[in-house]
């Protein structure tokens, strides 16, 4: 279906080619998972399939890409629209019309499909993706999962043989992601569509993949069955890491297979006590922030309802819940910059015996009490180089010559970012580190991060865990809102779950996360009822007991 023949892609502004001598064949009806760290050329590989690389992006493509017998060198993307459907990360970016039905018809209108056929295909697609009751709705008022399904439907109506999905679930909460992935697997199994899928959160998709294309960096590409590739690949979901640690062959890829393979392991671990993921809380952690009865409403619709929250120094709290459950609103209200209808926030400061309310202070004052990194960190960046941003941060925070400058903080968070780089050219993880450094310049003792894990790969997430660990060790209180349960299992001391503006659960990570079948991380699902949360815990126990894991 798709053939890459000695393909090399070289962009003008880089010294090394992004892809080098790639030979690759994808058969019809395969669900092909493309894995690799950020910046190794996943998007380039996917873009080459429908000719966006190099027709749209520029650069030079050597070699030959054949898609359903057509050479992309002679066919620009628009001429391949009837063979390849492309869905991007943020569905809203690709919408041309404004209602569901018109969006579904758009590609067919371009392909000059007769009106009667169009009508029929729209109805079929509405049913196929479960969109029938949304047909007349405006696109912008749909939820993220619904929008992404419309985006998939809008390319499906052209009846493409290949579907290319570039991180289709990275902007979605777990439920919406499930919804989209279920639709995708259905297409593969029922219609025999060939799917090429790039995804950071491998734990969500690995069990569905027929083939994995691994980009280890260096521009090469390794392709094979999931079990082969994940035996050695540098990135792997927790289930695979556990399988490797326990020496299971073949590697199980679904929770069901892993649980069956794990029966002996569970017996062996039965009497052990898992080492704590994070150092046990020392007693007497100071209360840094006390919020009482926080209520936030937008146009009369409550987003946060009378929430009480206390944050302790040295504690990392994960804030979880669906999209729209009030997480962001709560964080903004705690910081004092967002609206707050009722309630009080009191932040303890070392200089002042009386606790202060950030809402009642100036922006600069609030910032010294509570730092917030918003969902889109780039909203805070507007200068031309990293150095300018950092200098500006020093001025804004009034850092004196002998104080800790933002450059020092940044070097501690993410070493090796050159001064002259444009902030927009940084990777997602580096941007996050830069904004974090800017916010930390004001030395707040409470730090709130709104969905920092979005768009981060495994390596960047491990970095983030190290950073927040250090921040907590310095005695700060850190709150992270996130959907990523694996991240929470490794990073958080405490989990707060919100639903419709209420706090529905609040407690130590082990208790909150394991109790819920949806929220449980993969390791917990496999080893339940044992209280293990992460692969590292299980691996450490296995080595401590000196047993050969393979036996």
């Amino acid at each position: 279906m798709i053939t890459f023949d000695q393909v090399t892609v070289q962009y003008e502004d880089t010294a090394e080619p992004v892809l080098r001598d790639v030979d690759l064949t994808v058969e019809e009806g395969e669900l092909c998972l493309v894995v690799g760290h950020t910046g190794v050329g996943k998007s380039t590989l996917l873009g080459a399939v429908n000719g966006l690389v190099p027709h749209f992006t520029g650069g030079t493509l050597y070699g030959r890409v054949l898609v359903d017998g057509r050479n992309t060198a002679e066919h620009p993307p628009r001429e391949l629209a009837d063979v390849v459907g492309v869905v991007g990360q943020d569905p809203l970016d690709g919408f041309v019309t404004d209602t569901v039905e018109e969006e579904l018809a758009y590609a067919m209108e371009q392909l000059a499909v007769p009106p009667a056929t169009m009508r029929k295909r729209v109805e079929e697609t509405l049913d196929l993706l479960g969109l029938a009751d949304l047909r007349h709705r405006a696109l912008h008022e749909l939820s993220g999962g619904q929008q992404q399904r419309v985006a998939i439907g809008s390319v499906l109506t052209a009846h493409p043989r290949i579907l290319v999905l570039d991180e289709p679930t990275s902007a979605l909460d777990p439920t919406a992601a499930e919804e989209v992935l279920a639709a995708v697997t259905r297409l593969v199994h029922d219609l025999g569509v060939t799917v090429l899928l790039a995804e950071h959160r491998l734990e969500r998709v690995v069990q569905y993949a027929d083939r994995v294309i691994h980009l280890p960096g260096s521009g090469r590409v390794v392709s094979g069955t999931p079990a082969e590739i994940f035996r050695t690949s540098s990135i792997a979901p927790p289930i695979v890491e556990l399988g490797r640690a326990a020496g299971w062959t073949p590697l199980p890829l679904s929770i069901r297979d892993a649980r069956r393979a794990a029966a002996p392991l569970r017996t062996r671990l039965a009497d052990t006590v898992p080492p704590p993921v994070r150092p046990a809380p020392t007693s007497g952690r100071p209360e840094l922030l006390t919020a009482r009865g926080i209520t936030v409403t937008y146009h009369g619709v409550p987003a946060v309802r009378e929430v009480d929250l206390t944050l302790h120094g040295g504690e990392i709290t994960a804030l979880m819940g669906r999209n729209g459950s009030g997480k962001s609103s709560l964080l903004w209200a705690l910081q004092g910059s967002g609206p707050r209808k009722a309630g009080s926030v009191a932040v303890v400061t070392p200089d002042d015996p009386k606790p202060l309310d950030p809402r009642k202070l100036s922006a600069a004052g609030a910032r010294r009490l509570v730092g917030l990194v918003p969902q889109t960190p780039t909203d805070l960046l507007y200068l031309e180089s990293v150095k300018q941003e950092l200098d500006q941060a020093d001025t804004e925070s009034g850092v004196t010559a002998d104080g800790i400058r933002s450059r020092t903080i940044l070097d501690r968070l993410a070493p090796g970012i050159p001064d002259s780089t444009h902030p927009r050219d940084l990777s997602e993880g580096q941007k996050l580190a830069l904004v974090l450094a800017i916010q930390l310049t004001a030395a707040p003792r409470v730090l709130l991060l709104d969905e920092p894990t979005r768009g981060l790969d495994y390596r960047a997430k491990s970095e983030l865990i190290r950073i927040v660990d250090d921040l907590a060790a310095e005695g700060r209180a850190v709150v992270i809102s996130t959907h990523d349960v694996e991240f929470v299992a490794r990073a958080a001391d405490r989990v707060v779950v919100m639903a419709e503006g209420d706090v529905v659960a609040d407690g130590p990570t082990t208790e909150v996360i394991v109790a819920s079948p949806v929220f449980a991380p993969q390791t917990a699902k496999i080893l339940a009822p044992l209280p293990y949360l992460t692969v590292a815990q299980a691996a450490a126990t296995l080595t401590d007991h000196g047993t050969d894991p393979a036996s």
Partner: protein
Amino acid sequence: MPRTTASAQAAKPPVSGPAPDTGGRRLPRTLHPVAWWIWALALATAVSRTNNPLLLFLVLAVLGYVITMRRTEAPWARGFKYYLYLALTVVTIRVTFRAVFATGITPRDHFLFSLPHIPTPDWYAGIQLGGPVSLEALLSAATDGLRLACMLCCIGAANTLANPKRALRVLPGALYELGVAVTVSLSVAPQLVQSVQRVHRAKRLRAGRSKGLRALRGIIVPVLEDALERSLRLAAAMDSRGYGRAGTATRRSRRLTGALMLLGMCGLCAGAYGLLDATAPKLLGLPAMGAGAVLCFAGLRLGGRRITRTSYRPDPWRFAEWAVAGCGVLSAVLLFANVGFNAAELNPSIYPLSWPTLPLVPAAAILLAGTAGFLAPPPAAPTRAALPPQRTEEPK
């Protein structure tokens, strides 16, 4: 999958199969946008003919009636009140200017009040500021303003009744790109507003300056970068979905189209010049205009032919469309025909000052335009049950 179909069917009966407008003209459907535009423009033309405040108020009443009867719940259909505000502003400005830039007062006028006279320098002698203001001057300014306001409201009514995006689809194939550009900018504008709000809110987090040029830069740079990235992604998405597929155009036919359009435009320009300038030779007027129009039309047709595109659920043109467009045009024709009424009644004199009379035939003509309110099929009722619980807006 079975779950979703079941719930969809429970929510409302399946509407697959033929379009819901085949049974008869009373089934709810949206009227062809061009029909509404013809109706509204014809009414505006009729309005341009009269100065009679009674007739003008009658037009406003007719517009109000038709809009209440036939508008939908869509966002663009909620905009008529803004046109009314605009109309009110027009009248106010007109009257204020007339009072301030006074034209003096004659013995026949009714003196109303006097504004302090501001002497103007010699080189500015033509215009007088302040001075006595007469009732007649204000009345004539008000009726003039009202006429303009009425015409504005007619355009407003067309925009309220017809979906602007569907109206753009009527454009000839050769102008399709223009239509897409407008559609895209319409959908990008709200996103831009959202982006500005988000960045503005985020600024406080950094405690940057909130006033001055630097602060503006702090908002504009992220917003523009955001918008640029977004539009690049949109362009890529449109390209991958087949936008701009070349049809069967040959190089020759493309050149021919270009030549026809260029010549046609020249003809139109020359014709307009000939018509407007009295000293120009007679030959330059109407004939050049006509030739230009024909050439342009041929160019558009030829250009449209190379574009291979179909349209999803095109709006049909049926009896209701004929009826609505027809009643609008008929009322304009009646007002211009000068049959059955005295033309002076359309523009009642304010000397001597008297209550204007309501001429029978023009009033009937305007009421006739109002029949569009029931000649047009009712718009599809919004499916309230299918509406979602409102999403809470979180700061993003």
